[in-house]
């Protein structure tokens, strides 16, 4: 709006304009309400200022007025609540088949990992016009992933994954802040998000040869010996992981959970907490054995098993960089 004195940050995501619209509405509403109240006070203060011989007129109150100024605000508030909730609902509901970035935060650094294998520190390169989903965790304390230009913020917790997503609409370089106080260099835990034209992004991606994340995961899967029990061909001691991701899983105790990132994470670190029906809690605990980065890779691998390729030999077929949903340009989000 004003080049030298902006009132809001650049709008660089599909969600930014919707947040700003509600913000501007609320600014207008607040300005109107303050103006009305302050004018009324000012008028009363001048008109009914103390004058000799003029006495105040005693008024008890008025049920009609009290009702009016309780009920009207209630409906206005309800309207704002609904508007805000709609925006939030969309912010918290990532579209399917978004491009995924794994984030590991630590004091005081952002480590970002692309599915294609590129690793970045305090810098994130992404293409414009794609849905981007962040799968985030922390190695130590709570951090918060905040990009003002996208109007997106999500705390990043140790011990679990939290998610955020956005759809960048404008190439450029934007601030990445840590928004949850995390110790000495909290204000130094900043970085940038570089939104690029798709062609540029492809060039950037191919700039360095990399092992795709799921492939790394498969390697770790084998190294840790997971594949001795989790195998498709036998009555294995552990459940076959092909096609599991994203599907409901029946547990030993009768509950059903959806096999999402947090479920996979928990099942690796602390397998006894949710045992799949028909299996015994014999899997060793991996808490403290695998690092957060290895865990990201394992999750990406298990996820790649979730969409078995034509060869049905889960793991190798779908782990490549040409992971179909990830590079599907035809899939545009229907949200604006």
């Amino acid at each position, binding site marked *: 709006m004003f080049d030298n004195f902006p009132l*809001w940050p650049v709008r660089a995501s599909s969600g930014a304009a919707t947040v700003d619209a509600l913000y501007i509405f609320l600014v207008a509403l607040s300005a109107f309400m303050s103006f009305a109240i302050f004018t009324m006070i000012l008028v009363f203060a001048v008109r009914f200022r103390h004058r000799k011989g003029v006495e105040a007129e005693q008024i008890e*109150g008025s049920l009609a007025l009290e009702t009016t100024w309780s009920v009207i605000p209630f409906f206005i508030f309800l309207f*704002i609540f609904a508007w805000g909730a709609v925006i*939030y609902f969309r912010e918290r509901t990532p579209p399917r088949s978004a491009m995924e970035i794994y984030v590991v935060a630590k004091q005081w650094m952002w480590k970002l990992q692309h599915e294609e294998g590129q690793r970045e520190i305090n810098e994130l390169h992404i293409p414009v016009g794609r849905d981007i989903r962040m799968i985030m965790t922390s190695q130590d304390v*709570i951090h918060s992933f905040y990009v003002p230009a996208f109007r997106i913020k999500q705390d990043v917790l140790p*011990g679990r994954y939290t998610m955020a997503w956005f759809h960048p609409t404008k190439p450029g370089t934007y601030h990445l802040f840590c928004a949850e106080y995390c110790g000495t260099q909290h204000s130094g835990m900043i970085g940038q998000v570089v939104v690029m034209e798709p062609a540029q992004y492809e060039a950037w991606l191919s700039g360095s040869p990399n092992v795709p994340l799921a492939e790394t995961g498969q390697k770790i899967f084998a190294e840790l010996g997971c594949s001795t029990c989790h195998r498709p061909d036998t009555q294995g001691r552990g459940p076959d992981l092909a096609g599991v991701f994203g599907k409901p899983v029946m547990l030993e105790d009768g509950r059903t959970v959806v096999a999402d990132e947090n479920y996979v994470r928990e099942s690796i670190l602390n397998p006894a907490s949710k045992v799949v029906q028909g299996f015994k809690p014999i899997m060793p605990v991996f808490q403290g054995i695998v690092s957060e980065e290895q865990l990201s890779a394992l999750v990406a691998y298990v996820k790649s098993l979730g969409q078995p390729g034509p060869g049905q030999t889960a793991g190798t077929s779908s782990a490549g960089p040409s992971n179909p949903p990830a590079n599907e340009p035809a899939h545009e989000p229907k949200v604006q």
Partner: protein
Amino acid sequence: MATAAVTAERENYLNQQYGIRSWLLTTDHKRIALLYLASITFFFFIGGFFALLIRLELLTPAGDLVQADTYNKLFSMHGQVMVFFFLIPSIPAVLGNFLVPLMIGAKDLAFPRINLLSWYLYAIAGLMYIHCILTGGVDTGWTFYTPLSTAFSNTKVIEAGLSIFVVGFSSILTGLNFVVTIHRMRAPGMTWSRLPLFIWAHYATSIIQLLGTPVLAITLVLVVLERALHLGIFDPKLGGDPLLFQHLFWFYSHPAVYIMILPSMGVITEIVPCFSRKRVFGYEFVAMASIAIAVIGFLVWAHHMFVAGISLYSAMIFSFLSYLVAIPSAIKVFNWTATMYKGSIRFSTPMLYAFGFIGLFTMGGLTGLFLAALGIDVHVTDTYFVIAHFHYIMVGGAVMGYLGGMHFWWPKISGRMYPESWGRLAALIVFLGFNLTFFPQFILGYLGMPRRYWQYPPEFQVLNVLSTAGSTILAVGYLLPMVYFLWSMRYGKVADDNPWGASGLEWMTTSPPPTFNFEETPVVTWEAYDYAHIPDPEEVAVER
């Protein structure tokens, strides 16, 4: 009172006994109020000093005045000192302590010795906290978020936590004392519907203190246990849940905002009718709004956690409930405004603070609507927008109310008048300084500047410079009253028993009151704010 032999040496609570023992062992609620006044003023200036250092550091984008660790300690201790050692005790422990018995026609609080005990707990906690400051301080933010506080901070977390644990009991005991006093000690004829709204506000506050503070106390004990003994409660590495801490912490700390603001609303509800010479508009609604705020205030805590990782639907419920709590606050603002209608308004210092309170509280409340809106909260939470919002409520609201109340009841407390023109000047300076300090922070926050940043990108500098400039003006505004209040104790004009022509039993006894408040127990036969039957002090003087 109409006793004719009024001499300068009239016996009152201040001159009845002298000597340090008579103060430190007193059970007189009025003297204990003054002990609190001295102690919280001390902490207010410590907290204010930290605030000035914070603002000076933020004058430039680079971290150049103090080290990062020092800066983190400054904002942590600024928050803890201001919240736990100034704002929460401010109006209840000083004005409430002084006025609750007087206003209901009682000789003292129900438990005078427990009242003294609560001051001693405050003093012990205060000494512990000062020891903590002097031996290194604490850097967890005022919020003690885990696992930062339990596993990562290298500072005096345990000492700070225990100090706040102890000060919490001071707050609980004050609340307990008020609840029992208001139930059991009202003078004959002082029915619930005749209580001054200041009392209703303190009753609501006391309920929060009684029910909320124990939760904070337990939470702090858990933090100490996890930090000292590695008991896994909040740290995921030990099998704990960091969000559990946030739920427990905000279960107290959101209602704590109402501990700070409700008494201030009570003060404003006394001042506005007095200087409008009118009964308050909608007595029952203002009273019930206090209770509603106290009750609904317990159901909104997770609106501090919309980006923390709670579920989508619980966020929606807490957003909705947060809008509900806005309604009783709005009712109060409308009723104060309506009280002025057809009044006879004087612009004395307390009334100027009341105007300031209404203005700043309205803006703080309206920006609360932004933060309760889920979609906007995601962008502005943990930025300067939140800082600006809660300072409008807690400084623009609570502190304005506290200062207004101090001016209003100063003649009763000290028996002296403060210099009126200095009072008005200070009120104006506070108002202007406050807005210059905190208004730019709304814009900063929406632009995306996170809170608790020691250094920041250079594009945020202009607004930070404005804010720092405002803070120095605000500091002058806060120093002035302290200077002229002290001056007035010796040189101020001797105050009449009821210099403002105000309603309320406290104005029917002498200024300052005798130790047991009333020569004989008053019998109340009139409604609160009966301004139709209270002569205007100046008009009376003219008639004579």
